[in-house]
């Protein structure tokens, strides 16, 4: 087998990708007419079924980085890839039993809605919005840089052109089509990706007579251990970041508002877990297949694409390239939507205008925010061109696990959490994870070029997550303010609604405007 040559241009893949873009733009145009209210733009009017939302969650969650990265890591390091494949699956049972139903029952559009169900100070919402934006921006930049490099390699299109095209398309989907279009883009992408990986895994197994023993007899001797898990602390830290980060990714949490009720939210997670678990399982097979079937040892991230060529020929190779692009596009659209919603719904409507902004005004801000975020992402992608941005996805997961997740679960389940505790713990988790990642070996040594790291572990999850929970606890138990007493009292209604939904505790029994700020003499 000769190593495939990436012919400049790759016309078949271009045509297929153009087909995907054409179809999704048509959907966006169709969705734009239906996106006139905040409920439609942020949450698709809660109109998706559990199956569709499960597919969309899988579409949001599986990035091209993980698709190419996991198979590449297995190809090069064996177990390292397996760890990620498993780590991205194990968070879902926690999402299901801890946050999915309460999210649907308590919130409307963003996870900050849930955090602020009883902690109503704008400062708390600002914190949740910052957690969202930090996660989203880091993730977005990493995706854009990866996308630019991948497109340059596969299609021979210059990096700058690729980044601008991806950026503009994502802005179009999000600002015109809102959640309705973005969800449909995710669904299409998920189906394409599942089809591609199934075909590749099946072809690998076919080569080995559908006998795993044969496959691993060739692949297992090469299976090695990377540098990922050198000691128990690193292992625990990475494990916590992967598991709890999944339950704190704002663009994933937002997906639970696109279904009608808690039952559908639950079904979404079951479908999503099935699709995601299946996908990574198949990716593991593809990774092992690459060890045995791909001779061109070189760039790890290209292992899956080389394999596509080896098992499916030129046309299938082009198809997988096009799917990889569609994957990137869908993920960045989901991220941009979550980020823009944090700006318009949380920062503008709730913090800046204190809930007095008209809906049409909020939606105008949403459009502006999605365009602005897109431009920021494009600019940052230019700034980080050619640099090692892999740490950014890791950092996004650590922030999601250290700031968003602890804040969300404590506010749902712990009566004692107060505004002060939320602020202390949330900011400690957010700032702590950024500082520790920057001081750690990945950024301090590899990016900034210092000799020795200030903090020894590449992944600070264990420390930053503990710090956040400690802050949430200490800040709350030392808070004896009148506001704290009111917030504790409000837990009952929140708890009942989290369990039973809005039918048991309607919004009217918990009026936004009069509680609890009006009961305090000073705002």
């Amino acid at each position, binding site marked *: 087998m000769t190593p495939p040559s990436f012919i400049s241009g790759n016309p078949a893949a271009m045509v297929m990708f153009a087909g995907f873009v054409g179809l999704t733009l048509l959907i966006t145009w169709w969705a734009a007419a239906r996106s006139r209210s905040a409920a439609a733009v942020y949450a698709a009017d809660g109109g998706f079924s559990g199956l569709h939302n499960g597919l969309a969650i899988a579409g949001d969650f599986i990035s091209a980085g993980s698709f190419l990265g996991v198979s590449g890591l297995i190809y090069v390091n064996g*177990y390292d890839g*397996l*760890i990620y*494949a*498993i*780590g991205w*699956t*194990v968070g*879902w*049972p*926690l999402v*299901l*039993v*801890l946050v999915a139903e309460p999210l649907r029952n308590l919130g409307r559009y963003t996870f900050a809605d849930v955090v602020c169900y009883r902690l109503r100070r704008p400062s708390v919402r600002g914190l949740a919005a910052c957690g969202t934006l930090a996660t989203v921006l880091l993730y977005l930049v990493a995706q854009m840089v990866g996308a630019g490099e991948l497109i340059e390699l596969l299609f021979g299109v210059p990096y700058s052109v690729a980044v601008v095209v991806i950026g503009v398309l994502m802005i179009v989907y999000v600002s015109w089509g809102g959640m309705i279009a973005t969800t449909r883009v995710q669904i299409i992408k998920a189906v394409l990706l599942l089809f591609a990986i199934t075909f590749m895994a099946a072809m690998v197994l076919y080569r080995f007579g559908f006998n*795993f*023993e*044969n496959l*691993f*007899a060739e692949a*297992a001797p090469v*299976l090695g*251990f990377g540098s990922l*898990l*050198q*000691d*128990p602390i*690193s*292992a*625990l830290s*990475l*494990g916590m970041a992967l*598991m709890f980060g999944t339950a704190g990714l704002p663009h994933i949490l937002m997906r639970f508002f696109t279904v009608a009720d808690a*039952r559908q939210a*639950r*079904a979404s*997670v*079951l479908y999503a*877990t*099935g699709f995601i*678990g299946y996908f*990574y*399982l198949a990716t*593991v097979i593809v990774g092992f297949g690459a060890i045995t079937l791909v001779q061109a040892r070189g760039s790890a991230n290209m292992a899956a694409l080389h394999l596509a060529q080896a098992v499916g020929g030129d046309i299938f190779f082009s198809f997988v390239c096009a799917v990889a692009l569609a994957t990137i596009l869908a993920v960045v659209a989901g991220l941009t939507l979550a980020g823009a919603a944090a700006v318009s719904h949380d920062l503008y409507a709730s913090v800046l205008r204190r809930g007095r902004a008209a809906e049409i005004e909020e939606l105008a801000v949403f459009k502006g925010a999605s365009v602005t975020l897109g431009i920021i992402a494009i600019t940052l992608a230019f700034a980080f061109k050619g640099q090692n941005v892999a740490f950014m996805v890791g950092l996004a997961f650590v922030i999601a696990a250290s700031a968003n997740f602890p804040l969300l679960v404590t506010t749902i389940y712990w009566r004692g959490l107060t505004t002060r505790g939320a602020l202390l713990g949330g900011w400690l988790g957010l700032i702590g994870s950024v500082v520790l990642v920057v001081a750690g070996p990945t950024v301090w040594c590899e990016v900034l070029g210092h000799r020795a790291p200030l903090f020894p572990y590449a992944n600070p999850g264990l420390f930053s997550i503990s710090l956040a929970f400690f802050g949430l606890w200490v800040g709350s138990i030392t808070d004896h303010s009148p506001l704290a007493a*009111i917030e504790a*009292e*409000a837990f*009952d*209604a929140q*708890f*009942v609604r989290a*369990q*039973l*939904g809005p*039918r*048991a*505790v309607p919004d009217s*029994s*918990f009026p936004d405007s009069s*509680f*609890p700020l009006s009961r305090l003499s000073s705002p």
Partner: protein
Amino acid sequence: MADQRTRAILDHPDFRKLVRRRGRLALMIALVMMIVWFGFILSVACKAPVLARPLGGGSIPVGLAAGLGVMLTAFGLTWLYVRRANREFDRLARRLVESLPE
């Protein structure tokens, strides 16, 4: 801020039953998943050579089989919760909400 309706629900035997059962199942699932996952990842960090050994007399390494087991556990636990919630918790919750005065 517990108004009368909220108070009535909180004291309702069905609500207590629902919260107790769901809470127990949720806690069990979260704990099992964490033990399995952290157990796996710690054994990769500490006992790597053992995991590289082939399972039984075949060629599939122990670590890989264990890893697939972890993924199947995740899906199994999810399925278990959804099944019980659909069959049992939803019914309890519906009966409770319908019994409440408007």
